[in-house]
């Protein structure tokens, strides 16, 4: 096979996007500057900061995989360079034609390899390129879904000769279009002036094309509105592109689901919702194809839907890109592109690949081993990512070992010629620098053939020699502006920058009742629990911090002791510290704050907020922007924690947290329809609040028979008043004993006080009663049982005298310890255990 290695090598010097070799500004950049003005440092820095702030506010993140066991993901803010990658429309026409052809070619290759396989019979492809490829999914052969390919992406780099080349083909998960959209939204806002004055092509039409293309795939229309019901299948919030999955689902009007939300019944795929099963017509998948059905593909996958393939065979659901599409991503295939194009499309390839050799071919192997140092060696059958071996970096010994490995198993090795990507001006550490860029272009199969997004995702490399390929490795991203040098338009004619929001099925904070799927309900329940836990912790810690700051006041030491005991019973600080509080209350209090702020303390405040964040991550698609904003604010507060040293800063942190959490309660009460979603959220809160009351009673020491000392009473009242300072509400002149029993009553049986146990229990009872009914035939369901138990206890409080002596209180706390987890389990059994979800 002929490979144009020489052409690639001759052009090793980098091309610059903005200036020519003799330092002259290129035409489309002149146009850009005329609208934008020069790169003034202060202005650019301000824009860089605004872009960061805007993307942060919009929750745009990229998850970076950690190497822990189990693997963890950390969310990293998405970085956007305030200088766009500018491309002239003339040049773009050529790129777009090349990407269009490539998408059509990829579709034709998939069609052949999953059907007649003429490419192998006619020896266009050696059998091993397909049959040795783990991406060749044999069970998918013969699935007739049309078209197999709906979305396609290509990573492009420009070599020193000025020609764009393809670095990677992406049909498995053409990730990045959601990020491109966010970049455009942010830059369109912070560079509104330049934008108004430049004819930059808009992105909206492309997303409209996708939306209609997805609907066209549907084999039937099962949506309540007579339209197809389509979902976006995501691996979940730990995936690197989780943000994009949520964002795309929102823009395309799809329900965001995970494999566990879907079930195959009667030759159809269904979404499990609280009100029963909703048939799914189209699945836009972001789960790799071999993970999609553990029955016939990877048996260890927990991300897929058992039985999916059989439904696809029967034509009951359309999955896009179809299963098996990942084959296109293989590096090995790149070296055959010219021949494939000629054979399948009958025309020459417009956009060449970066020179690629597949070691399974004897000639290629010889060429590769002859000039190994010029290449980046990659696994032949996976997508090109940033983990290739750069032969030029190896010692002589390592190079030998690589050559031996290639010779021993040539079929599994491929190599791409090292290519220095073109540079573009980028805003780095306060100044403009030329940095290597790659461009990801996107294509969608519309009604009239393939269309390419007029723009794309630009990425900036940290390292000049390595073009960026995977999302995780980019030092930053760029919006891509296609500027038409010929057109001059008035601002009035401008099409919208980003597509308008489609009509959403959501109202208020979360999905409509009927649409709420079981997992969303479960997440809401846990959001409620962790929000309340964070709230109680923050308020109690604030009470501690106030006293440390005011340690001269008489009674502070005595008040600290019960406070620390409450924190101990809540699990917020280690018991050791609570014990130490008898000898040295102030020292113990400082330690307690330290421990409560420790991110590694599983009962601490950062952990509670992290759990809250995780539970809400699964809801991203359906949370209102304001609530999302509060959650991010809390994240920000936690992020500040390592820097928090003195008591003043700690207090400030706790104030901020308490305010944010109070804001969340406000939104829940005032901004959310009372559907099942709301009920689950508030139920979680109430259960956690009851747990807090039990801890408070324990921490008061009254169950051990301690007398009602004034300090304890003050603490109890303060906690009963939600930790708000000074609003105790019971006259301080009362004798201590009376105030003591009043405090207990306030805590337990004050039906008008939202933090009393009675109020909480009655609230739990009415919330449970309002949930969708799930009693099994002929027996009492778990929810009925829970309602009975809670109702019984509440009734006791209303009618029986207050328990005041230690034994009675002890008995009460013991009952709560049994009752509260029991309710949580009953709710889980009734609604969240996905085994129950096929109730229909």
């Amino acid at each position, binding site marked *: 096979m002929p490979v144009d290695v020489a052409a690639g090598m001759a052009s090793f010097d980098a091309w610059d996007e903005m200036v020519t070799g003799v330092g002259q500004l290129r035409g489309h950049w002149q146009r850009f500057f005329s609208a934008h003005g020069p790169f003034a440092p202060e202005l650019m820095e301000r824009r860089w900061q605004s872009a960061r702030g805007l993307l942060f506010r919009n929750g745009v993140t990229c998850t970076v995989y950690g190497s822990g066991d189990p693997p963890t993901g950390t969310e990293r803010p998405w970085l956007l360079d305030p200088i766009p990658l500018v491309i002239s429309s003339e040049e773009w026409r050529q790129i777009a034609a090349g990407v269009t052809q490539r998408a059509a070619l990829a579709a034709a290759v998939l069609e052949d390899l999953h059907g007649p396989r003429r490419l192998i019979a006619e*020896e266009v492809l050696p059998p091993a390129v397909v049959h040795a490829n783990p991406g060749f999914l044999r069970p998918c052969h013969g699935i007739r879904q049309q078209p197999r390919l709906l979305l396609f992406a290509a990573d492009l780099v420009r070599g020193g000769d000025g020609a764009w080349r393809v670095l990677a083909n992406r049909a498995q998960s053409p990730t990045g279009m959601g990020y491109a959209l966010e970049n455009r939204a942010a830059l369109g806002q912070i560079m509104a002036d330049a934008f108004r004055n430049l004819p930059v092509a808009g992105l909206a039409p492309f997303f409209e094309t996708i939306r209609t293309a997805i609907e066209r795939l549907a084999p039937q229309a099962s949506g309540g509105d007579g339209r197809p019901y389509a979902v976006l299948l995501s691996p979940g919030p730990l995936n690197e592109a989780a943000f994009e999955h949520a964002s795309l689902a929102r823009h395309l009007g799809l329900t965001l689901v995970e494999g566990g939300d879907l*079930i195959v019944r*009667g030759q159809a795929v269904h979404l499990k919702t609280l009100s029963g099963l909703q048939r799914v017509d189209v699945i836009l998948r972001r789960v790799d194809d071999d993970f999609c059905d553990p029955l016939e593909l990877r048996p260890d996958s927990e991300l897929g839907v058992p039985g999916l393939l*059989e439904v696809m065979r029967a034509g009951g659901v359309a999955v896009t890109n179809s299963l098996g599409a990942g084959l296109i991503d293989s590096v090995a295939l790149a070296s055959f592109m010219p021949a494939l194009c000629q054979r399948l499309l009958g025309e020459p390839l417009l956009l060449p690949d970066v020179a690629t050799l597949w070691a399974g071919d004897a000639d290629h192997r010889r060429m590769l081993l002859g000039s190994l140092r010029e290449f980046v060696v990659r696994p032949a059958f996976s997508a090109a990512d940033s983990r290739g071996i750069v032969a030029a970096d190896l010692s002589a010994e390592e190079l030998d070992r690589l050559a031996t490995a290639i010779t021993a198993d040539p079929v599994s090795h491929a190599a791409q010629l090292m290519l220095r990507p073109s540079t573009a001006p980028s805003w780095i550490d306060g100044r403009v620098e030329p940095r290597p860029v790659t461009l990801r272009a996107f294509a969608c199969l519309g009604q009239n053939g393939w269309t390419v997004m007029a723009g794309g995702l630009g990425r900036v490399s940290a390292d000049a020699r390595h073009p960026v390929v995977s999302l995780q490795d980019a030092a930053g991203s760029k919006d891509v502006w296609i500027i038409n040098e010929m057109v001059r338009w008035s601002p009035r004619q401008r099409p919208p920058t980003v597509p308008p929001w489609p009509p959403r099925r959501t109202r208020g904070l979360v999905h409509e009742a009927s649409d709420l799927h079981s997992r969303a309900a479960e997440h809401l329940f846990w959001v409620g629990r962790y929000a309340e836990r964070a709230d109680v912790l923050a308020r109690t810690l604030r009470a501690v911090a106030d006293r440390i700051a005011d340690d001269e006041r008489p009674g502070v030491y005595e008040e600290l002791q019960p406070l620390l005991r409450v924190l101990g019973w809540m699990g917020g600080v280690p018991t050791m510290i609570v014990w130490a509080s008898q000898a040295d209350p102030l020292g113990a209090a400082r330690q307690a704050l330290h421990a409560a702020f420790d991110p590694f303390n599983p009962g601490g405040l950062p952990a509670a907020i992290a759990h809250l964040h995780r539970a809400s991550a699964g809801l991203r698609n359906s949370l209102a922007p304001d609530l999302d904003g509060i959650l991010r604010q809390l994240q920000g507060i936690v992020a500040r924690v390592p820097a928090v040293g003195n008591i003043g800063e700690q207090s400030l942190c706790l104030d901020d947290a308490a305010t944010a959490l109070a804001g969340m309660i406000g939104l829940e009460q005032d901004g959310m329809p009372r559907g099942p979603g709301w009920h689950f959220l508030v139920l979680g809160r109430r259960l956690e609040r009851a747990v807090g009351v039990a801890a408070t009673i324990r921490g008061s020491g009254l169950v051990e028979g301690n007398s009602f000392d004034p300090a304890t009473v003050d603490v109890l009242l303060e906690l009963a008043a939600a930790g708000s300072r000074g609003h105790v509400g019971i006259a301080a002149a009362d004798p201590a004993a009376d105030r003591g029993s009043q405090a207990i009553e306030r805590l337990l049986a004050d039906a008008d006080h939202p933090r009393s146990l009675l109020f909480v229990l009655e609230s739990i009872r009415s919330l449970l009663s309002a949930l969708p009914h799930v009693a099994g035939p002929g027996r009492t369901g778990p929810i009925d049982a829970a309602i009975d138990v809670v109702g019984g206890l509440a009734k006791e409080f209303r009618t029986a005298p207050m328990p005041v002596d230690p034994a009675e209180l002890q008995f009460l706390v013991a009952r709560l310890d049994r009752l509260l987890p029991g309710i949580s389990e009953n709710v889980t059994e009734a609604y969240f255990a996905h085994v129950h979800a096929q109730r229909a």
Partner: protein
Amino acid sequence: MSMPNVPDMPAVVPARYRCQHSTRYEYEQTVVGSHLLAHLSPRPRPGQAGRLTRLGIQPQPAVVIDRLDWFGNPVHYAAIEEPHSILSVDVEMEVEVAIAGVACPERTPTWETIRATSPHSVEVADFLPRSTRVDTPQVMLAAYAQSSFQEGTPVAVGGLDLMRRIHADFAFDPQATTVSTPVAEVFGNRRGVCQDFAHLMIGMLRSIGLPARYVSGYIRTEPPGNGDWRGAESSHAWVQAWCGQGDGWLDLDPTNAVTIGSDHITLAWGRDYDDVSPLRGVILGGGRHLLHVGVRVDRIGPA
């Protein structure tokens, strides 16, 4: 059933069998749904014909689909949609078998010829690369295999020799391995069961560039003459080695050091166990489970 006329070999006496294969899962907790994929029908091949006489699944599946898989094996898909805590799959089949095998091993092409031509052949393309269960193209496997394949050795002669050496060097020991023991470990410990030996031999053949595939089936319970068959009364597995277009695939049973004639019943073949496991399933819920499997192969007379 018409048998190919093979003058060079003693004619294989056809035999007729009834095979029963029952599988029973008992779950700790209720399972609310199961999806099953079964390779439990006799695969039609020259020298073997048969049919499934019973496919009993309890509880009653809501959906059953029969089709052929990528390798041409009959496969049954079943979806059970009612809650259950016991799942049973009972299969009965009648099979006539008399596999002629390779007529004359000495006249098969040299192994070097097979190695040189195989990469270009679509027919064997699936069976040359590594696969999920046979994924270690190890130098030591190649070194072991190589002494059976000297320069110019006819491929079938080498295959037979390799089969006998594995049988001699490796101990049959059901305690030594589980269904997921890697090939490298079997090779290191020198012990295992039929599935392990099949994977091991496939790995060895592929490591020197010879296509090999995995066969799932049964072996008759009572062997002719004295001695025991290994692998009877359960699922059995063996190997097919590619001997070129003229001679096709040669069945080699390294567990018993025999080629196959009328004592082996073929269910399915593929790259390795994962392609053809007799019963594969995904359940929703269920916790831990107990598994009982029983296989009976009764000879019900000559064909």
